């Protein structure tokens, strides 16, 4: 069955996008409610789930222990990519494997980022298991990025470069020839 994993928010129930009729027996899309905690106020959000993988944590998805190191995570991801990526999967299982690849990708993206992994671990410890797309969104991604240090370093360099190229633009109102002659004159007078 084809399913694009788009879910209507607002109900405790979910239905699949491509099928107007909601499958009653096949729990393809469902938010996970861990037994330990009650979520009366929790609102169902988009999830991409498979019945078989229902309870798998990101660690289980990647097949690594919760103490797994970054190189282990990377290695596991690449191995699973070799298996599930649609380019290398058996032709008759492309759709199923594509779904799995996207899940593996999400697990990898979360666990290979130390901040995201810490958040995920914290939620796991509390018994909250918000898998796919639940925590991550446009805004939270941006917030997350703003706090990273590597970003600032490149950003400073980038804004400096852009500013320099803008100043060149400022005299761009001259015709091209005039601009070049001026540059030549500036050079020769130096």
């Amino acid at each position, binding site marked *: 069955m084809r399913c694009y994993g788009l879910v209507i928010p607002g109900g405790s129930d979910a239905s699949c996008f491509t099928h107007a009729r909601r499958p009653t027996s096949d729990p393809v899309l469902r938010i996970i409610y861990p037994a330990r905690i009650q979520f009366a106020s929790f609102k169902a959000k988009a999830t991409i789930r498979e019945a078989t993988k229902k309870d798998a944590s990101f660690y289980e998805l990647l097949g690594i222990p919760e103490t797994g190191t970054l190189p282990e995570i990377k290695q596991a991801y690449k191995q699973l990519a070799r298996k599930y990526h649609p380019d290398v999967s058996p032709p008759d299982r492309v759709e199923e494997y594509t779904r799995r690849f996207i899940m593996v990708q999400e697990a990898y993206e979360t666990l290979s980022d130390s901040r995201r992994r810490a958040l995920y671990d914290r939620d796991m410890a509390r018994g909250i298991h918000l898998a796919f797309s639940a925590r991550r969104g446009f805004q939270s991604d941006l917030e997350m990025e703003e706090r990273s240090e590597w970003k600032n370093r*490149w950003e400073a360099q980038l804004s400096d470069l852009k500013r320099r190229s803008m100043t060149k633009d400022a005299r761009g109102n001259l015709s091209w020839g005039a601009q070049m002659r001026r540059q030549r004159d500036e050079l020769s007078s130096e």
Partner: protein
Amino acid sequence: MAQPAYTVTSDSENTGEEKSSVAFPDIAIGIDIGTSQCRVAVWNGSQVELLKNARNLKMMQSYVTFKDDLSSGGVSNQLSHELDMFSGSVIFNMKRLIGRVDTDPVVHASKSLPFLVQTLNIGVRPIIAALVRNAWRSTTPEEVLAIYLVELRVMVEGQLKRPIRNVVLTTPVSFNRFQLTRIERACAMAGLHVLRLMPEPTAVALLYAQQQQQTAQDSMGSGSEKIALIFNMGAGYCDVAVSATAGGVSQIKALAGSAIGGEDLLQNMMRYLFPESEIMLMRHGVDDIKSMAKLRVATQDAINTLSFQNSVQVDVDIVSGTETCKVVDKVVDREEFEVVNEKVFQQCEILIVQCLHDAKVDVQDIADVILVGGCSKIPKIRNIVQGICKKEAFYKDMNPLEAAVSGAALEGAVASGVSDPFGKLDLLTIQATPLAIGIRADGNKFIPIIPKNTTMPARKELHFTTARDNQNEALVLVYEGGAKIEENYLLGYFKIIGIPPAPKGVPEITVGMDIDATNVLRVFAGATLPGAKEPFFPFMEVRMPTVDDGNGWCDEALHTAYGNRLDLVSLPKKI
């Protein structure tokens, strides 16, 4: 000499046919059609082999000559003189023109080429024409490319002694989805089926992955992850990629690209050497074209010389009109060349820094810096890349002009399901989206749904709501590009209908996007009220791009017709 059949086998925008089920050995060939040059390669069972044309050349020029009823491309045809290329009857630089409208600055820069590029500046496709018997005969970039591809196909079929159907083509990073469909269209016109389109540096990344895997196997090493920065600059485009490679898997972490290249360096230099050329280039008189051809050839020679010499003498006689005869007689040094092209080089710097930034990579983590493409020998380019990456030396094990096509041939073999007993094809490229895809919301803002550099295949969604009370319809405008909506490409549009009556901000509208294994983009959208179990109206599923031509005026027409009546407002994530 038999003229190859010029067939149009498909008129569909998206050549959405099933993958060929033809049995082995239908290995897809790799084609790298550059703005100025073209190469073809194929996996020959044990390694990648570059194919040569009848004149024993691996590198063929990308152009098509129009003559009376006959058109012939640079695969088989040989021009009697270098200057003939710039006589007006030869169309080249198709890659800079394909899929662009007449308001595009790249199209405007092409107006100084010897053939005719006419613009009306309203957002439709430009008129492109070749000079045949003193008349401008129109053609299209797709047609020119198709004629060229037919020749290429005949050449390859003759050598491999089998019909060729599947191809892997390399494309610039900055190409939008509409431009990619134009490439697919040209291939379909030539009877070829596109198995994959690969951004050029990602093809290089695949070749690198193979080389690293071989080295790791030879040395019995563990093959830990290696970060590579790939910089590719040809005549028309500049592309940058950062990849993480281990065990034959090359994961693209970030891509950046722009339509800048050797053609810009050349045009800037021509104007610098001979400022009056601006007028003559645009005028397209018969004498103007001849004079400018000489200037172009002399300037290109000078630029090439400046790559290994500090200065060069340029001599050209230019006939302008009937009476005047002007002579360019100048010594140009490398520094002048660098000053004249300062902006182009700055743009290259920005692309590299942007790409490293997006890849979240630190300089010291870069294991290899790979420099490829026709402009890779320019000293200034080498300095820039070296300066940013803080590397003494570049990666040496690749031919800078053959890397992209070799990668495409590898992908062709992998995607055709070929395996190699020595594991040379145990390879995989994990691609990322070169551009962001999103919709217009919150007034005139671009809200990305699939951000730039998202791993493909991908599936993402965001939630929106209505902008007015009892709004029963909403317009979904899908754009591709960067942060600024005005600069983005409108891929398509549709309406969400049947939104239940409610105050503004109450209905929940979900917009989802899905890029599948073959890079097909589908957009889903639908509305519901909080608490409702079922949508009021079936969801929409639309395959993009739907705008096939004239995106410039389409955008404006939609704005004129609907204003902000059917607007969407983004909802924050509630968790």
